[in-house]
């Protein structure tokens, strides 16, 4: 059986990583922050399928609005013992993962 893939999620994207290296905007933490984005096109496609725009995530995860959710974050109800919280508007869940879970 041959596999059909659509544009936006090419085979090579499943392992693609995108790096960005920048000072953290207005926070001016004077720290070097590096963000690695895994399989960017694939996840973008999933977001599109669900009608989620990048701006939705940025707004929901705005640090200034999420102080309380982060303070109240559950320390792993699950077996993984990961840290997770619900965005203040309850739209998204952010959870930490171990390197093993990433791969």
């Amino acid at each position, binding site marked *: 059986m041959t*596999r059909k893939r*659509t544009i936006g*999620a090419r*085979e090579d994207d*499943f*392992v693609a990583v995108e790096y960005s290296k920048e000072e953290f905007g207005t926070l001016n933490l004077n*720290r*070097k*922050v*590096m*963000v*690695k*984005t*895994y*399989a960017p096109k*694939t*996840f973008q*496609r*999933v*977001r599109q*399928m*669900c009608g*989620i725009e990048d701006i939705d*995530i940025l707004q929901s*995860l705005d640090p200034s609005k999420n102080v309380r959710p982060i303070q109240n974050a559950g320390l792993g*109800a*699950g*077996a*993984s013992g990961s840290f997770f919280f*619900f*965005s203040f508007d*309850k*739209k*998204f*869940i*952010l*959870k*930490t*993962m*171990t*390197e*093993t*879970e*990433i*791969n």
Partner: protein
Amino acid sequence: MLRMLPEYYDYMEQEPDSFIAKMFGMFSVKIDKFESLHVMIMQNTMPHIDGAEMHYVFDMKGSSINREVLKKKKNSELKRPTGGRVLKDLDYVRLKELKNFFNLDEDMSEPILSQLCKDSSFLMSQQFMDYSLLLGIRKIEDGSAPDESTKMNLANFAINEPSIVSEGNAGVQ
């Protein structure tokens, strides 16, 4: 997760109505010389409809072992909705009797069951073993129907508990 991403992606495309939680992104963040922090952003499978919480939330694994949260509560103490507290299989069995949550006719239940079967087959094929079905029930306050109208929000919470049987090893990661 990256290892199963192609299959996950294909499945989501084939089954847009799947109850499996949607993953929206995976990132590693490194600040100065600190250890990298890995995070995943995913859909909250239990959204607040019109800003209101579910009246009941059940995390169901289809087991009766160690699946009761309200064990010590008497029936008379269970009049109020349990709100954000996540209950389990045996609590559902008990509350269902007390509350008469909902009845679905076959037209409604068949598509749900069939989707759940597909979803769990997929999870099984990916060797996931620790996942559960999250069921939220909210009583709709329109006062018109004498029986309890309930809104169902079903979600397979699979990806929230990514315990995969590792290859050649029966242990859970």
